[in-house]
């Protein structure tokens, strides 16, 4: 009790009484993110590990003071955005302080001449997007969590949005950042388009999932809102021919904003929902957007190549329907999770074209004994593509055991078939045990980074499997 009181006073000195909480309801809310495993545990009445305090900083100096205190008194600090991560990256740790970034949500500067926006990282993705839209711009970053995710979360997890094929992933958008190191030092990287002054420090912080620093501000590249948008849909007789079509137009140098190929199972569900009945095969959705003349040429070329690969033109409607409901799916899923014994999760991996089909087949057969599995392919590149599996089952035995079995089967198959274990969801605590196999000797490098930057292991200990 007295330790907590002393801790409370120290935190209150930094944040003021309004922005420190030890309410039980807050501690329980902040004990998890959207990791399915924690949702299962909570659903069946288990008590999750809770933090001791939640704080809401409004300035980088407050965070610096917090981390200095954390090092002196040896308690963990967990940076927290909006808690929509699905890997257990932001969770409660006993004795720890959750650092909720959402009060630091200002747009600091807009530079239209250089198409840059400087923002505090606590801003919700959708709110930033709306502010940019008002001025005729877009960030071009549309993960399905956009309503409940912060820019800080994007940066920490190396997120990718649905239109990444055109607008890039988060690492293509960040040109500079401000962050606080675990010892309280505030660092800034220079906002220039590109430099050759040693290794890129932004790349070391991006994807560090709160283990190496707390990012506070970023400079992001913005783009003008597209003039035109074209919706294209095709069905293919097999996943292979659909993938061939994608590979062809990606390697032709085209960059449609949205590219999504659904396997047979996923297509049946989707087409059913759209009211198409006698359609089988694999649905490919392509959306091209940008300047009018470029969209025209791009759509024409995509159409030519998709038709040549055996695609049957299905017009605009399937693509338009997807576009209009693209965020709804995640929210539709949550009622499923409120039923006891239900397990619903997503597994996303990535590979070079030469390994994609075998990866898909191998993972599908590894998961099928445990759960119903459907997949779509998106985030296309000239070199390969990401596979997004949705797995669902009602557990016969222990739900957590079943959950763990599904993931073990999937990740083992992934590594065996030359896949990389995560394309954009990140590692968190969920995939930490496979990160060592994924990185090999490279994992030692991560531990060196961690030991060097956070010798007392106070920043989000356990994430990425570091500092357990």
């Amino acid at each position: 009790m007295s330790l907590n009181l002393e801790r409370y006073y120290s935190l209150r000195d930094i944040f003021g009484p309004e922005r420190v909480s030890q309410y039980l309801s807050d501690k329980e809310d902040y004990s998890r993110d959207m990791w399915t495993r924690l949702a299962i545990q909570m659903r069946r009445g288990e008590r999750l590990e809770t933090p001791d305090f939640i704080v809401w900083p409004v300035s980088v100096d407050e965070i610096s003071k917090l981390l200095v205190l954390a090092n002196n008194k040896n308690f963990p600090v967990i940076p927290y955005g909006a808690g929509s991560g699905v890997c257990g990256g932001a969770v409660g740790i006993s004795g720890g302080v959750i650092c909720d970034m959402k009060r630091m949500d200002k747009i600091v500067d807009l530079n239209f001449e250089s198409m840059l926006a400087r923002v505090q990282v606590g801003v919700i993705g959708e709110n930033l997007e709306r502010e940019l839209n008002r001025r005729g711009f877009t960030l071009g970053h549309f993960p399905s969590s956009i309503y409940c995710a912060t820019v800080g979360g994007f940066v920490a997890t190396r997120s990718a949005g649905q239109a990444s094929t055109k607008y890039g992933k988060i690492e293509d958008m960040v040109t500079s950042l401000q962050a606080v190191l675990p010892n309280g030092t505030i660092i800034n990287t220079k906002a220039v388009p590109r430099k050759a002054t040693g290794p890129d420090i932004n790349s070391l912080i991006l994807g560090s999932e709160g283990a190496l620093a707390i990012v506070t501000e970023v400079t992001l590249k913005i783009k003008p809102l597209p003039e035109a948008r074209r919706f294209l849909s095709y069905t293919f007789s097999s996943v292979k021919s659909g993938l061939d079509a994608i590979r062809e137009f990606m390697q032709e140098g085209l960059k449609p904003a949205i590219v999504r190929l659904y396997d047979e199972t996923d297509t049946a569900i989707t087409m059913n929902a759209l009211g198409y009945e006698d359609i089988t095969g694999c649905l490919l959705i392509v959306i091209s957007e940008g300047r009018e003349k470029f969209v025209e040429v791009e759509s024409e070329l995509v159409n030519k190549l998709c038709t040549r690969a055996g695609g049957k033109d299905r017009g605009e409607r399937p693509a338009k329907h997807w576009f209009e409901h693209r965020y709804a799916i995640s929210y539709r899923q949550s009622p499923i999770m409120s039923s006891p014994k239900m397990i619903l999760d997503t597994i996303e991996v990535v590979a070079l074209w030469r390994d994609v089909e075998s990866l898909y087949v191998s993972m599908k057969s590894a998961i099928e004994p445990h759960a119903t599995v459907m997949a779509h392919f998106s985030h296309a590149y000239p070199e390969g593509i990401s596979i997004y599996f949705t797995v669902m089952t009602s557990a016969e035995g222990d739900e957590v055991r079943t959950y763990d079995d599904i993931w073990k089967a999937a990740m083992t198959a992934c590594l065996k078939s030359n896949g990389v274990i995560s394309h954009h969801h990140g590692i968190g605590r969920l995939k930490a045990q496979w990160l060592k196999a994924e990185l090999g000797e490279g994992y030692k490098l991560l531990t060196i980074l961690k030991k060097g930057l956070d010798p007392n292991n106070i920043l989000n200990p356990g994430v990425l499997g570091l500092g357990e």
Partner: protein
Amino acid sequence: MSDSTSFNLEESLKKLFGQENVSFDPLDLTLYGRDCMPTSILKMQAGAWTSQAKCVVWPTETRQISELLKLAQTKKFDVIPFGAGSGVCGGTEPVSPAVIVDMKRMDKVLDFDPYSKVVTVQCGIILEHLERYLNARGHTLGHFPSSIYCCTVGGNLATRSAGQMSSKYGKIEDMVIGLEVVMPTGSVVRVRPAPRRSTGPDLIQLFVGSEGTFGIITEATLRIWKLPEERIFAAFKFPDVKSGISAMREIMQSDIKPSVVRFYDELDTAFSGAGKEEGGILDILPIKEAAQLLRSIFPGLVRAAQRAVLSRAELLNLIDKVVKEGCLMILVFEGNRKLAKLEFEEAKNICDKNGAEYLGPAPAQKWYQNRYSISYKQSKVFYMGAFVDTIEVATSWDKLSLLYSEIKAAISRHALVLAHFSHAYVDGCSIYFTFVTSGLSLEDRLKVHKEIWESAMKACLRVGATISHHHGVGLVRSSWMQEELSSSFVILDIIKSGIDPSGVMNPYKLGFDKRPLEEK
């Protein structure tokens, strides 16, 4: 470098690499003791330079490099990886005695995969050899630094190089998707190739730009492209620098991705012979034939005259007040035929809007045909007793004009300075300054060189631009690194002490002190 009493370096190296693959020969040590950094060339010309290379080794496999670095950590001798030695920053020049590791025997293409559009190579391969290999199979890497004939992929990765077509094909960090690197402690890190991943911080990017201070890069997997079915050349003349910058920005911000964007300021347009076949300082004299005649009869006299003129830079810089040739812009579009054509049309509209005169494809084609020869012509300047150097920087569009005028003013006090803008991005652009000057003695030349670099670096830091866009840090910028990176430098320092505890990998480069953090 600590004395090796009971440890015999020569014996250990010969055992590891084989007798024929180790050299202590003075000629080898001289050749491997420097790269193309101009100040070392000047010193060498004056007989005032000695090599600090202790010996040269030629590995043929990763295992040998692993054993070498393990040995170097424990016996504490310095190691410097060496590609083809065409760096211009002194990155491979040993400051203290060091073992030079020439990577060029590890030059194989390990895997060519046109289906996935990737190629895996050993990093000692000469870049032009790789490009030729790919061309023969209908592909291209898209990486064209002017050093392409004399640089290795390892050097490209270590220095964060960018080629002339980077606006379309990307810079080296955009091209590499898989890596094998030997850590300073000898362990081998492999990042498996994938288009993209979210498995923690990007470990590949830890080594791109590490300039040999974090280990030795041995293999890389790179993205490749089909050879373009169409290539469209276009040249424009702008009334001034301002209008050209405006056009460049608009083009880059309009979804257009030219493969080449190069915009020359007035002096560079007049002097460098951009678009002309016989480019060069000598051709500024309107009496070209007379000059050629003089040169053939009285070569020494002409050289002396040129030297005298070149050391009066303020005279030469006045020429841009007289020369009204305008500013040349070269654009190239390539790839899918329909898209390239559309890009050209849209870009032409933008140039017209900004007051440009369309010159047709010829000047751009001429530049393309002579694009590599310019660097080799620079050596003539050294023979004349003058010297030439380059400083390349970058910043966002809103600061670009300011950066240009600040650095131009700073250098113009001491030398003739030409500038062109290239490597354009949506959010900014790079500026490439070439300066020529002379001096009566080696001390004079080094002094003026130092003053020029200092004023240029200070201007960058003042404006908030970066001190290097693609040449790297090496020795020339080493002392500016702390200011350039300011608060974030500590991260590099922490990594360095963590992965190279003995501090043996290419010491004194990238702003690192010789000894690691703890011992300071």
